[in-house]
């Protein structure tokens, strides 16, 4: 039945349609329980009998108060705790909402100097990682659950042997952001004759640090200050999505992205082979194959007067390199060059260019280097060698999963280590091969600290007592060192000794400590910047390849390096660019797809030449991608570590190899063969064109600056037959700045967590039944080869004359006097008429009773939001529970609600500060000011439905002649 399909979404064999549903959901068992209840409700006895069976005398309900009251602890009242996100090594500041003594929501901490209030998708779901059924609940010894005493006894014996024998003890860790933990690990290793810490990141930036070792004599990662840059040139660096510190970078980037910011709008040029989130936000993009990136840099360097060999480029690219060089020249001292390649030559060129252009000390901060990526690939390579030679007696894994994320050689070498100990939270691929498991606390249960940028320290305090028999890594290492110490003591001591003296402002440690706890972060002195050293650029030049396919390995915004692949929220988060969920795939450019006769979903067999591993992946046709590049996401294909991640996608990590001591995608030509059949990808968006519709407005910067009023849309909604209805004390409205929004999707997940929105699984997404209340529509404009990209967050527009309201027969959706379009779940009978009549298609229907029965997972639900049953419509409520909470708090304190006090979850954590929300009844509120912005336009305003959400025209910092993409809009 080919006719059922549209051109863009022809599908072949649909794999395993129904069976997958139950498996993919986080908790499968409960589906059955629920349906049994419904079964009785209807069990063939007719409707009345069904009604009667639905009745039940409620069981005796317990009411269990606290045993002891505590100052400031009130059941039902949320407390906010400042802490530090442990989702990755970026160390963003987090505010955790604690209800009844457990964390239910994480948000960005505006007081944190690096992340400044932003939080990414991965950070937002961390509570779900805490209440995860797949966590290890006790230590294990040789594959069997045991208790800590037994494990410690066994370890003590083995460590004692090693101390006497002098066997090599290695701790392999992802970047350890916590100075206290690092000290504990170092202290532990210090008790051995041959103990060493090896840090290795799955998404490695080792070459960057190594380059600075060559240029400045010190292995460091600079802290890039995007807010200072007038010109940003990114080379294969997805700094808004996955590179080093995406939240901090996005926050800083947003400071300069938009025509009405305090400082002039920056210009962003992205040079890349795939279309990354960062590239999708660039004003100009240069497409090149991965092998052309280093020559491009060489060409830049030569243009800018550095004595470098190479720089052989095809003529069109050479011209572009010249243009970019001119731009850099023009912005000398105010620009920034960022390179995401894990290639020493590339990074050294970048470092030397940044120095030569006078960026150091302005946009490249070496005095306060970033400590977020400390992985050293050379050390890892050395460790691998040691292991393979059988010279490692004990390997302790801390916050890493090398069997999964390192080259295949690791796994076999790992088995040669006699004592294999992992501190992982779940039984991941590496933990499954360990002899000892000493599960660490989830970071929300632990006392930690973090120093993301030298001199900026933040504290992480636990939000709940440990749920399981886990132990803080700090305590474990202290104990194994023979100096048992509680984590809080260790932390406090470390701060008293090492941190407190580095500042002068506060004289009393307790005050300093308490202030840091409450604020979440503190800034102290850091060392000075190292000096530049002239030198020859390392490595030989390589000519770009002329033909054949090249492999690009990248990380997805939602999944990152894959360590959280077992959290279904992240699997279901649509990739900001492809809008695909629950899979990784082989991205090819439209031209390549046409040449190979490929369509979306066709299976493709890929293998780097001479490599053992061949992967079969579905094709995604990716506009804007280089024609010779095949891009595959990392982080998929988990085989252990949690149900949701199992069997989702394929693991491409083994395709990385050491090149000159740094892990990078296998540079061998990629063999591409057609596979058998097709897979239906679970995409949330199938149509990528605006179809010539004025749904998004765009404008170039220069004409806007000449005449800001010209941005005002010509067409205004016509008059209404009816008089507008009255509003009460407040009237809520939202404005989304399309110039600022990067599409990072943090809001999507934040909304999902705040509002108890279910994850539905791959099959349901395939059926277009994802539940996200807030989605980000991504449109391509212009040519397929070089498209303009627009990210448009789309949520319930809370229309004043909402079309959904009229049609509900039972008054389940009506208007509030504060201008909210209210959806009353308990009144809804589920006709779906409202969803049909919604022009924005933002209403979501509960097609099934989604499983919510896991008692553990239910702890993570927001207790202020009803968990919807099947058959009920739901949609964005402007986080009405938060508005109510803010209003109640203000009223209880006997004062008026302040502007900025009531914030929806999406707005709170937006790293780009793209969302403004507030009360339009207050003429001084920020929203009232933004509403007067000439750039403001309504989506489908011509329907006269009066949406309360409006958008600001996307301004692109393009010069008219660079506007070859034929961008749509004003």
């Amino acid at each position, binding site marked *: 039945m080919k006719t059922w399909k549209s051109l863009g979404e022809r599908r072949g064999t649909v794999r395993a349609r129904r069976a997958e549903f139950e498996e993919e959901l986080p908790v499968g068992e409960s589906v059955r329980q629920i349906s049994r209840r419904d079964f009785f409700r209807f069990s063939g006895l007719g409707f009345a009998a069904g*009604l009667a069976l639905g*009745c039940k005398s409620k069981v*005796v*309900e*317990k*009411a*269990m*108060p*606290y*045993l*002891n*009251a505590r100052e400031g602890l*009130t*059941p*039902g*009242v949320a407390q906010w705790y400042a802490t530090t996100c442990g989702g990755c090594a970026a160390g963003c500041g987090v505010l955790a909402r604690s209800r009844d003594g457990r964390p239910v929501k994480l948000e960005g901490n505006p007081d944190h100097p690096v992340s400044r209030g932003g939080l990414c998708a991965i950070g937002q779901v961390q509570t779900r990682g805490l209440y995860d059924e797949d966590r290890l609940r006790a230590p294990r010894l040789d594959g069997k659950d045991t208790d800590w005493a037994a494990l410690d006894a066994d370890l003590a014996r083995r460590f004692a042997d090693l101390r006497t024998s002098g066997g090599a003890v290695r701790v392999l860790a992802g970047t350890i952001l916590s100075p206290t933990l690092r000290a504990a690990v170092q202290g532990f290793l210090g008790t051995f004759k041959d103990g060493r810490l090896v840090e290795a990141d799955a998404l490695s930036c080792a070459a960057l640090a190594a380059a600075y070792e060559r240029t400045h004599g010190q292995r460091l990662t600079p802290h890039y200050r995007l807010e200072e840059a007038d010109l940003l040139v990114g080379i294969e660096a997805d700094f808004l999505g996955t590179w080093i510190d995406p939240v901090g970078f996005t926050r800083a980037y947003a400071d300069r992205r938009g025509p009405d910011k305090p400082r002039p709008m920056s210009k962003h040029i992205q040079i890349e082979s795939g279309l990354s989130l960062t590239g999708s936000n660039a004003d100009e993009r240069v497409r090149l194959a991965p092998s052309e990136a280093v020559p491009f840099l060489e060409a830049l360097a030569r243009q800018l007067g550095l004595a470098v060999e190479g720089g052989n480029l095809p003529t069109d690219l050479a011209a572009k390199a010249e243009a970019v060089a001119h731009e850099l020249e023009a912005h000398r001292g105010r620009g920034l060059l960022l390179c995401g390649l894990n290639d020493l030559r590339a990074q050294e060129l970048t470092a030397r260019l940044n120095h030569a252009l006078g960026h150091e000390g302005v946009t490249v901060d070496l005095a306060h280097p970033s400590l977020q990526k400390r992985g050293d690939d050379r050390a890892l390579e050395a460790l691998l060698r040691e292991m393979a030679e059988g010279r490692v007696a004990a390997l302790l894994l801390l916050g890493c999963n090398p069997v999964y994320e390192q080259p295949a050689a690791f796994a076999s070498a790992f088995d040669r280590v006699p004592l294999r100990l992992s501190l992982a939270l779940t039984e991941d691929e590496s933990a499954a091969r360990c002899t000892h498991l000493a599960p660490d606390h989830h970071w929300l249960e632990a006392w930690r600290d973090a120093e993301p940028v030298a001199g900026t320290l933040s504290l992480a305090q636990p939000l709940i007592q440990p749920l399981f028999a886990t132990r803080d890594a700090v305590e474990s290492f202290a104990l194994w060192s023979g100096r048992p110490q509680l984590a809080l003591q260790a932390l406090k001591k470390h701060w008293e000794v090492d941190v407190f003296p580095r500042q002068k402002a506060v004289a009393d440690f307790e005050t300093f400590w308490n202030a840091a706890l409450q604020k979440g972060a503190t800034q102290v002195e850091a060392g000075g910047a190292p000096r530049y050293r002239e030198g020859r650029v390392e490595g030989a030049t390589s000519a770009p390849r002329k033909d054949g396919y090249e492999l690009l390995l990248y990380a997805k915004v939602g999944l990152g390096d894959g360590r959280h692949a077992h959290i279904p929220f992240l699997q279901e988060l649509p990739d900001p660019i492809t809008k695909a969920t629950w899979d990784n795939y082989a991205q090819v450019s439209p031209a390549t797809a046409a040449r190979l006769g490929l369509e979306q979903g066709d299976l493709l067999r890929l293998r780097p030449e001479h490599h053992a591993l061949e992967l079969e992946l579905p094709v995604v046709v990716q506009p804007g991608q280089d024609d010779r590049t095949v891009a595959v996401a990392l982080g998929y294909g988990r085989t252990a570590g949690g149900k949701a991640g199992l069997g989702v996608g394929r693991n491409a990590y083994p395709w990385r190899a050491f090149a000159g001591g740094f892990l990078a995608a296998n540079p061998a030509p990629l063999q591409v063969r057609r596979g058998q059949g097709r897979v239906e990808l679970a995409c949330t968006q199938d149509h990528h064109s605006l179809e010539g519709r004025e749904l998004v407005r765009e404008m170039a910067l220069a004409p806007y600056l000449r005449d800001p009023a010209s941005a005002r849309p010509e067409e205004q909604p016509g008059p209404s037959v009816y008089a507008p209805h009255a509003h*009460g*004390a407040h009237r809520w409205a939202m404005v989304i700045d399309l110039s600022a929004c990067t599409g990072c999707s943090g809001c999507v997940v934040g909304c999902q967590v705040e509002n108890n929105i279910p994850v539905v699984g791959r099959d349901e997404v395939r059926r277009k039944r994802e539940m996200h209340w807030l989605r980000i529509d991504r449109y391509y404009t212009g040519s397929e080869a070089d498209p303009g990209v627009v990210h448009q967050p789309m949520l319930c527009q809370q229309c004043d004359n909402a079309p959904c309201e009229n049609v509900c027969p039972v008054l389940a959706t*009506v208007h*509030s*006097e*504060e201008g*909210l379009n*209210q959806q*009353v*779940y*308990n*009144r809804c009978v589920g006709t779906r008429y409202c969803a049909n009549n919604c022009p924005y298609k933002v209403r979501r229907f509960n097609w099934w009773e989604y499983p919510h029965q896991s008692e553990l997972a239910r702890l993570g639900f927001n207790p*202020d*939001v*009803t*968990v919807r049953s099947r058959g009920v419509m739901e949609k964005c*409520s402007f986080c*009405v*529970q938060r508005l*109510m909470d803010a209003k*109640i708090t203000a*009223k*209880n304190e006997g004062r008026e609600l302040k502007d900025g006090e009531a914030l929806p979850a999406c707005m709170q954590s937006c790293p780009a500060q793209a969302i403004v929300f507030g009360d339009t009844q207050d003429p001084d509120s920020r929203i009232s000011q933004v509403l007067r912005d000439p750039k403001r336009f309504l989506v489908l305003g011509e329907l006269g439905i009066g949406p309360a959400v409006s958008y600001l025209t996307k301004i692109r910092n393009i010069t008219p002649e660079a506007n070859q993409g034929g961008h749509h809009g004003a």
Partner: protein
Amino acid sequence: MRTVAITGAVAFGASLMIFALSLDTRLLGDQSGYKPAQPIAYSHALHAGELKMDCLFCHTSAESSRHAGIPPLSTCMKCHESVLNRAGTPAGKSDPSPEIQKLRDAYASGRGLSWVRIHRLPAHVTFPHSRHIRAGLACQTCHGDVQGMERVEQAMALTMGECLACHRTENQKLQLAGKPAQAPTDCSACHH
């Protein structure tokens, strides 16, 4: 015959209406009168009635939280470490009444007590106690004369109609006095 028919029709209509109303939570789901035995025969009549203790003395969170809350045992122990029976305990004399002994045992055990929950609104409703207390509403408005109850029972059905009736009256009063309405009647004030 005609009389019979008319009577029949009226009876039919009326009883159908009553039946519908009854089913519609008036009878089903109406928990008023629920008066379960509690693990400790705590007497509100004694504490709130005779001793004139303020409701908020123990139910402290009622003025700051959505929950009125059940006091932690430590609150009970503020007095009952000394007070061991109804008559009050003269210093040095300790013959605790069995109920107070249960309390002391529970506290000492460190495990606390499981009371039987009486008032429970459906999960799709939020009722912020704090707003109502701070608006000056007496607890008795909804909970009945608790100070007279030896054992607490649910006094009202706590239906949406009861909520609305009060909110509407309050707003009318305010509007008559020329003030803006304070008691929200928006759906999402309670359902979210």
